[in-house]
């Protein structure tokens, strides 16, 4: 562990990449748990949703038929955990016939702007996402 970490001064940029559909594998749920745990450490956290990962953010998820808990409401709590940057890749949405309107309305309250509600989801192109990824210190892929 670096000296910077010990005095708490070193804030790193963490990116959690979500590539898989919400159900069928444990990846999506585990990623969310890791994000929630990691949020306790005051780092600069971003999430990205690419490939089938974009399905994690779709609204109106109903898991009654598969007997698995619908954990999608938990994404609405991310703002409370100061996780406010959710990058969604436009091309992945388009390739699956989805638009921004199919996604949940996720917001956070901006402490520096009189707690105004602001959208957490940022639509980015594949090229723009590349730039965001290049800025990260740590990238974890699920």
């Amino acid at each position: 562990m670096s000296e910077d970490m010990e005095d708490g001064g070193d804030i790193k940029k963490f990116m959690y990449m979500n590539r898989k559909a919400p159900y069928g594998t444990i990846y999506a749920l585990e990623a969310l748990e890791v994000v929630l745990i990691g949020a306790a450490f005051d780092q600069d956290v971003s999430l990205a949703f690419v490939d089938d990962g974009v399905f994690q953010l779709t609204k109106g998820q109903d898991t009654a038929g598969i007997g698995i808990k619908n954990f999608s409401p938990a994404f609405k709590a991310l703002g409370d955990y100061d996780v406010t940057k959710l990058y969604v890749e436009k091309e992945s949405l388009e390739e699956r016939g989805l638009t921004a309107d199919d996604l949940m309305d996720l917001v956070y309250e901006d402490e520096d702007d009189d707690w105004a509600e602001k959208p957490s989801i940022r639509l980015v192109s594949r090229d723009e996402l590349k730039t965001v990824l290049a800025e990260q210190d740590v990238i974890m892929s699920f």
Partner: protein
Amino acid sequence: MAYEVNGKTIEHDEEGYLSDLTQWDNDVAAILAKDEGIEMTDEHWEVVNFLREYYDEYQIAPAIRVLVKALKKTMGKEKGSNKYLYTLFPYGPAKQACKIAGLPKPTGCI
């Protein structure tokens, strides 16, 4: 492992958290509180009920930092503080209050 409440069997895990949170009711909460050595007052119920509502909405048990922030917003500064919560739940508000509320152990809770 299970609690017996009013003739019903309520399954729980090795740390005492309910296996099925739909089995929760006020009598179950009272038993859970007794196990934790806590005498439930209106103030305790306020926090427990708040946690139930939070879980209903978000499907997760909030971390202590998030709980404090949310309480501050809805109930004011005095009740939205670590100190107040530790007065009510001395062995860790997130852990104890979540258990009494029938919720799973909070993710990443200490």
